[in-house]
């Protein structure tokens, strides 16, 4: 193990590439025909989409009675998946906005990709509540518009807050992503020879000229958007947690939920970004732009948020005991020892125990190992939502109204659909748009900025 030299900043980009080399490397996937691996992968994801479509078709035609949701457990896979996907989305905004505001320069190489993931994940997430309404073609009523019934939506309902939060989050993430893309699209426009591509890039780059008079406003807007996106990302998962916490169901009504959900969201999001980035940097030869140092930083963030999640688990347990409330106490004992104990212990071992391996530098920097841990964390976080939703609903106050939850094949089908959608969109994204922010990486290579000699 070599000692770190603290007097030097860890370079954002390794191997000292020039600006034009960066542009070259990043645009390779867009300029070349898709390779074999890409074709195989998109076949798999399309098949997942197709299989999922069958499940979706059954759900549309026969209604959500096809799912495993039942009377005590009215929320099942649908809401588990919703929270899971919204959570995945959070890493993107965290990387692009919060780390931007904290001047963490290692975000440069991974921000664009994480933002795209946010958008796709929120799309997957939005699918589930939309379906859960039962008659999804009437979902327009979720928005407060002056409709023929002269009714307004219920502004005090957390489910309505979700509508606002998720749609705002989607819109703002999309804008953030697009604003970041404009200069890159302009660069692509000026280097491509293909006529069709050129006109598309021209349309979407809006005529960007890299003018300093524009950069000045552009940078200001980027800070403003980051400033808005930071509380937004907190608010979204907070509002998702309100769905549960404003109720009086034991195990749901607990005040730690907002920060706990946000930490969990960041946790799973980082795991997903890390997993997918490992593939991307390998496949597109981006190893010196998305460096091992970046992945290590991500793993460090994962231990931190993993510990926060662990703190929340422990605090919930302690307070359930401390409260002296029979129902609270029972709920938590039931989680750990009841019929769904297996889910609880999967959650604990994946979320709390598995990231502990990242204390070791060697494991933190091993691609294979970190990939495995990332997968574990994703599984664990999915089960966390399952534990919260299903155990609390299946056994609440009255033993006479307890019941078990068993998902059906259609539940799994819709879950597969969402994964298919997510990965298909990612595969399309990596072949059509720059996966790394060209302008930002150019700006962070050594010598890119004027030296500050002579003071300021």
């Amino acid at each position: 193990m070599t000692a770190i030299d603290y007097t030097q900043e860890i370079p954002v980009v390794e191997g000292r590439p020039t600006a034009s080399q960066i542009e070259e490397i990043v645009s390779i996937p867009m300029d070349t025909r898709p390779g074999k691996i890409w074709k195989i992968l998109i076949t798999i994801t399309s098949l997942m989409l197709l299989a999922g479509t069958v499940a979706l078709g059954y759900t549309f035609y026969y209604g959500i009675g096809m799912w495993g949701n039942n009377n005590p457990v009215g929320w099942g896979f649908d809401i588990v998946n919703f929270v899971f996907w919204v959570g995945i989305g959070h890493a993107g905004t965290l990387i692009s906005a919060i780390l931007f505001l904290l001047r963490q320069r290692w975000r440069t190489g991974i921000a664009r990709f994480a933002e795209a993931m946010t958008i796709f994940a929120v799309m997957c997430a939005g699918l589930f509540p939309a379906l859960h309404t039962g008659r999804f073609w009437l979902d327009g009523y979720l928005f407060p518009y002056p409709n023929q019934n002269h009714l307004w939506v219920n502004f005090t309902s957390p489910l309505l807050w979700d509508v606002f939060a998720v749609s705002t989050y989607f819109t703002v993430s999309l804008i953030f992503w697009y604003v970041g893309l404009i200069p890159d699209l302009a660069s692509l426009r000026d280097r491509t020879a293909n006529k069709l591509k050129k006109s598309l890039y021209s349309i979407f780059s809006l005529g960007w000229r890299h003018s300093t008079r524009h950069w000045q406003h552009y940078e200001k807007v980027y800070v403003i958007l980051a400033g808005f996106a930071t509380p937004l990302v907190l608010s979204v998962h907070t509002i998702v947690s309100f769905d549960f916490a404003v109720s009086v169901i034991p195990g749901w009504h607990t005040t730690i939920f907002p920060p706990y959900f946000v930490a969990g969201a960041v946790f799973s999001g980082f795991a997903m970004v890390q997993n997918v980035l490992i593939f991307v940097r390998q496949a597109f030869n981006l190893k010196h732009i998305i460096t091992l140092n970046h992945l290590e930083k991500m793993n460090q963030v994962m231990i931190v948020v993993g510990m926060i999640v662990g703190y929340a688990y422990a605090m919930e347990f302690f307070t359930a005991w401390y409260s002296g409330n029979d129902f609270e106490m029972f709920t938590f004992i039931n989680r750990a020892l009841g019929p769904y104990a297996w889910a609880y212990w999967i959650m604990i071992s994946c979320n709390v125990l598995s990231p502990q391996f990242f204390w070791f530098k060697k494991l933190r920097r091993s691609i294979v190992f970190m990939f495995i841990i990332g997968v574990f964390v994703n599984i664990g976080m999915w089960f966390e939502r399952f534990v919260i939703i299903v155990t609390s609903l299946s056994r609440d106050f009255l033993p006479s109204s307890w019941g078990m939850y068993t998902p059906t094949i259609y539940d799994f089908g819709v879950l597969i659909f969402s994964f298919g959608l997510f990965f298909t969109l990612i595969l399309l994204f990596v072949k059509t748009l720059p996966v790394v922010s060209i302008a930002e990486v150019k700006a962070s290579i050594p010598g890119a900025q004027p030296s500050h000699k002579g003071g300021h």
Partner: protein
Amino acid sequence: MEEKKIFSVAALFDTADEITRAAKETTAAGYTKYDVNTPYPVHGMEKAMNLKPSLLGIIAFVIGIGGVTFAVLFMSWASIIDYPLVIGGKPFFSWPAFVPVAFEVTVLSASVGTVVAMIALFFKFPHNSHALHETNYMKKVSADKFGINISVIDPLFDETKIKEFFAKLGGKDIETIYEEPFPKDIKMFDKRFIGVLVVTALVTSGATYLTLNKLLYMQPFSWMSEQNKGLPQSKSEVFPDGFTMRPPVEGTVARGFIPYEYKGMKDSAVINLSNPLPYSKEIIAVGKTRFDTYCSPCHGYFGKGDSRLHDQFPKPPTLHSDKVRNWVDGNIYHVITNGQNIMPSYEKQISRDDRWAIVHYIRVLQRSQNAKDSDFENSK
């Protein structure tokens, strides 16, 4: 061939340090209408170019304040004034519950508004016909060079002087950039243009028609609204009388309802019935509204028998006759409940308490029409 219009004179530099120096020198030389094009934002360039700080922060703040104000006012209006509903026992103005939506609306409006303001107002985008596009200069600054170009509208503009100035600064690829000549032969009725117009019109109107008339009324499946069950007022296949709605069993009595024991009997039988309601202002006010609704069309607002029905229905006698005035309360109640002569029973329309209230009101009317002097004294 006519002369092309000059747009600007441009030069390229290799490093960020060079371009920063060049910008400083250009500002120092007194040029104002010039621009620096760099592949990424170069730190300190706004200072070197002496630009004013961006106003977008203020715009974002103003839109944000507007968004939060609108959201709070709108939610308050919808849940206090327009359609008040008690939800979860909370007050109509439940401000903590408004916070999430107000916050989201603020963020949404401010971020969308700021970006739109930047693109449309500050950049005047989309703008793909700018003179710099498709020049060698643009291609270079898009990749890795740093360019500066002084526009023709600068008061100090002089092509040769600027070129010398740039050369002195060490600029490369110094060139003059010309405006793209505006095409002269633009026809109003170009075939392609008309074609696009027609297609757009057809597609838009067709889509609008389909959305408003078909799509909105489509029921992907209607199993919930069209169930195999008997609906009220529909014909029944099951029951021999053909009615879906079943009458209650003979002798059924509604909850809380005591049948009228003097039903169909003569007036004289009911003298023992006395008004259960107190003779109070509130009760009389109720009696007045009921009287005005149900009785006044025939009896008139003052019970004088001055019907508003213009002889389409026989006029009843006045209620101020000695006969009616001498009736006991029970007698008037009996008439309302049971009907008399041509007057039908009002048992179904007016509730029992309201009928007694009417009786009180009729007494008031009678008193008002036959007031004594002592009443006048008392009211002083």
